[in-house]
């Protein structure tokens, strides 16, 4: 009789172990990260915008303004830590082209270079995610090191531009002001920045002034096509360069090309208790006048043929 007793005992033990266990599972494990935020402060704009996504159990999929996810438990503030002013951002449920909705927050204020701003996104239970950015600005007034234009053997004209002392340069553009046009109608020609500064920490650009004439001519033909002449001479009255730099917290994102790394939550993020990026831009522009002599050296005037096909 020992064996049946032992079997019964084993079965009872098995059943009791089986019955006592709970099979419930809640795979959601997040009590520390509340919001994801994307956006940056832009000193060239008055209206600043960020997108806020609550980090919740379900993906954000808002198809109508009456849906539960259309309501967001978040108040957004910025505090200028340099001058101790605060700004409340306004919520907008924005409809995208695909018909879905997203949560945006806007605030109107002038972003000041060199100032530090802290963004706070706060729930009603006072849980908050925050991020801080310092708006970058160039380190000195004498920023651009430009050399004289050089006429090459094939008659094309180049000009070397050096940008020292900037780590996080995002983009670079040459600016041309055509004589007789408004300042706001300047022609911007983008240049691809090199992969990084040289050994002395200087970014080197070579403006191809002759090649840039194509952009100037195209712009002229687009905006001056109503004038009565078939052709028209065109010369420059000023030129310059402009570049934007991003803040130190944001810049590492551009040094990484591996999308899997970049997309890992928190891989490049300055958001405390959340994910995403809250950055800021700095902009630097230098322009100089062009004398007729210098214009001739640069290959101007040039003739624009308005009858030529685009």
């Amino acid at each position, binding site marked *: 009789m020992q064996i049946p007793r032992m079997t019964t005992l084993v079965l009872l033990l098995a059943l009791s172990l089986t019955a006592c266990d709970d099979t419930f599972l809640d795979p959601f494990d997040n009590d520390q990260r509340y919001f994801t935020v994307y956006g940056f402060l832009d000193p060239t704009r008055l209206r600043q*915008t960020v997108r806020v996504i609550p980090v919740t159990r379900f993906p954000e999929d808002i198809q109508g303004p009456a849906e539960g996810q259309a309501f967001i438990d978040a108040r957004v503030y910025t505090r200028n830590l340099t001058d101790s002013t605060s700004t409340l951002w306004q919520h907008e449920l924005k409809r995208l082209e695909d018909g879905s909705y997203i949560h945006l927050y806007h605030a109107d204020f002038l972003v000041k270079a060199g100032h530090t701003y802290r963004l706070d996104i706060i729930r009603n239970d006072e849980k908050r995610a925050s991020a801080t950015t310092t708006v970058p600005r160039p380190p000195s007034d004498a920023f651009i090191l430009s050399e004289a234009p050089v006429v090459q053997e094939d008659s094309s004209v180049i000009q070397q531009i050096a940008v020292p002392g900037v780590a996080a340069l995002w983009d670079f553009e040459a600016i041309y002001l055509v004589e007789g046009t408004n300042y706001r109608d300047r022609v911007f020609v983008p240049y691809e920045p090199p992969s990084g500064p040289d050994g002395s920490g200087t970014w080197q650009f070579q403006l191809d002034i002759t090649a840039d004439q194509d952009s100037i001519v195209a712009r002229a033909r687009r905006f001056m096509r109503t004038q009565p002449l078939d052709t028209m001479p065109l010369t420059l009255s000023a030129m310059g360069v402009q570049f934007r730099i991003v803040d130190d917290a944001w810049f590492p994102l551009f040094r990484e090309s591996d999308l899997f790394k970049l997309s890992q939550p928190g891989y490049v993020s300055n958001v405390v208790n959340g994910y995403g990026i809250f950055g800021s831009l700095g902009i630097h522009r230098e322009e100089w006048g062009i004398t007729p002599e210098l214009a001739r050296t640069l290959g101007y005037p040039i003739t624009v043929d308005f009858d030529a096909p685009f």
Partner: protein
Amino acid sequence: MEADRHRWLTFTGALTRLPHLAWRFGLPVLLLLMGHNAQAQQSVVRGFVTDASNEQPLQGATVVLRAADTIVSGTVTDGDGYFVINRIPPGFYDLVISFVGFAPGTESLVLSDGQIRDVRVALAMQAAAIEELVVEADAIGGITTVAAGLETVLPKAINRVPVPGVSGDLASYLQTVPGVTVQGDRGGQFFVRGGAVDQNLALLDGLPVYMPFHVLSSYSAFPEELVDRAAFYTGGFGARYGGRTSSILDVTARNGNKQHLAGSISVAPFLSAITVEGPLVEGRVSAVFSARQSFVEELLPNLLGQRMPYRFGDRFGKIHALLGSSHELSLTFLDTNDRGDIAGSKKSVFGDAQAAIVNDSTEVAWTNKVIGGTWIYRSNRIPIVSRLTAGRSQMTNAFGPNRAPERTASVESMEAGLRMSWLLDKGDVSVGSMLRRTDLGYTLDDLFTEFTTSQEVLTELHGYAETTLDLVQDHLTVNPGVHVYALIDRGQSWIEPRMRLSLWPTGREGRHQLNASWGIYHQALTGLTDERDLGNLFTAWITTPEGQEAMQSVHGILGWNVQIQPWLSGALETFYKNYDHISAPVFSPFPRFTTTLQEASGTAYGADVRLSLENRPFLQESVLDGSISYTWSTVEYQAGPYTYHPAHDRRHQLSAVVHAQKGDVGMIIQWQYGSGLPFTESGGFDVWYRLTPDVDVATEAGVDRIVYAEPFGGRQPTYARLDIWLERQVERGRYVSTIRAGALNLINRANLFYYDLFTFSRVDQLPFLPSVGFKLELR
């Protein structure tokens, strides 16, 4: 590269010199081993031992040669029922053959000088047969070793583990083996002692079956009726196997009855089957054919409120011929098909609406096709057995809607291999080689995945040499060997030493046996799955990425077997596996299948203990047998910055099977308990932008992203299931009818299969599920 090239040239040079080296060194050794025989012109007795009822070979039968009352020599039969006894002086002898459950057979022999005597002995089952041993010794070339990490499984053992139906299935049996972790009762994903699913190799008559398990994990392509025997290595396998780093399941199918027509027909909702076997040429050529098909989808689409969207089946055929006294030829064919909606029972914890979102995209389907043959030659002059195997294996896998799957993958391999064994008095020496060309491909076109397609070819050359020797007056059996694995297209090769040994401190009749095995293994194929998606049964097969070493594993196993009582035995095994250069998918935060890989490494170790009860009489005229086992193990991977326990790290596992028989009525109770498997928890969802100053977050939507918590940082709830079955078997002459009724998951426990993090809905394993089946056999 130069070092690789040099290594390759050295290897290929060595290959081209092999015949010369074999002639120069191997032949003298061989002659030395057999020299005594040749010089003295002594006799040889060899032959086959079979089951008289169906001519199936009996592996492990004891063959003793007696002269008067003196034992002259002895051996045991190998997997083909074959034995050979060399160096017999001329004289009068009795050849006595015995096997558990069978009446002994005796044959009187008169041997003259240099005679080679062929015998064929058919043993009849004893009237009151003792139950067969179900886990028995491995017999390779006449030597019996109970080896570390090896279970040899016979059909009787398979029958004792219940499935919803009348017949047993090897898949269900394997789930009771210590160290085997099953993801759930759907999909047939088996993890063996820390290895991943793609690191297992299943062989049917020597040919690979890439996805041998059916969509309901209780079933495989290896039902009880078709299995003659199966060797299941949970690690530490010998030199004859290669190309995989975790486990080997080597199934030998039945040859079929050479004496008379036999077969069976069974009807059950989950799986109905018909098997027919019989002689094509009596005593010489036999055939066995089987067809099985599930009807659960049609008959019980909503069983007790549970959707059953599963359809699977298989067709098997084998022809076996004895061609003279020296030749055997067999042809094997297998075709399987599976289709099922893995989320068939999906229910959202937040309501059905959420669950419905993904219900139509969780359909998975796969097929296998295997065709091949084996030719065996046993020399009349020298004790050499040659075995040539060739064939083709194919597997297709699809995920997504039936008519327009979003993902497809395929593997197709053709191979030919030769194994030659020299049978010695105290062991054997075997050498072999195998050439396999594998075509691999996949296409991914998910909603969230960029269209990706890949086609690859891998040509593998395997070579090996091993010996099995009885030493120290049969107290010690050693099985050293070396496997050479070469990727011909890539110029890469590896030398893999292997060792298996068994020690009987007090002799083979004693109570104790110590076992050990050790080996190095490489694998160039990787089956990509998304391990974090527990319900994902789609596997895309690829080769090791260029520039990365092939996956490598080192196994070590130590074991101790003890016969506590004649009816009670125990076994304790410890194992260690180390893995390097695993190609694992990166931890992508996007809801999609990824083929971007990261290199991982890992270790697995643990121990298991098992008590087995054999034929223990109890109550009145009743017999009890069964087993209870407990496994503790841990698996740890390192990938990138993460150290984690992967999805198959089941820390504790208990399994018990009890079979009670009284007369023609039997009862089987099975209970399984496992601690929770790891999974990656969700930290919620958000959106990802690669934010640049040119991105306008007010107009661009970004990409949906899941915020995974620490990889595999969570644990699922524990798993437990109690099954109970009653059966009655009635014999009328050659006809045997069996009816089996019972239930899976008797207490209707909600065991988790997987959790869909995207909808927060769970899929449970099968609930309380009653079943009844009927089988009629003609034996």
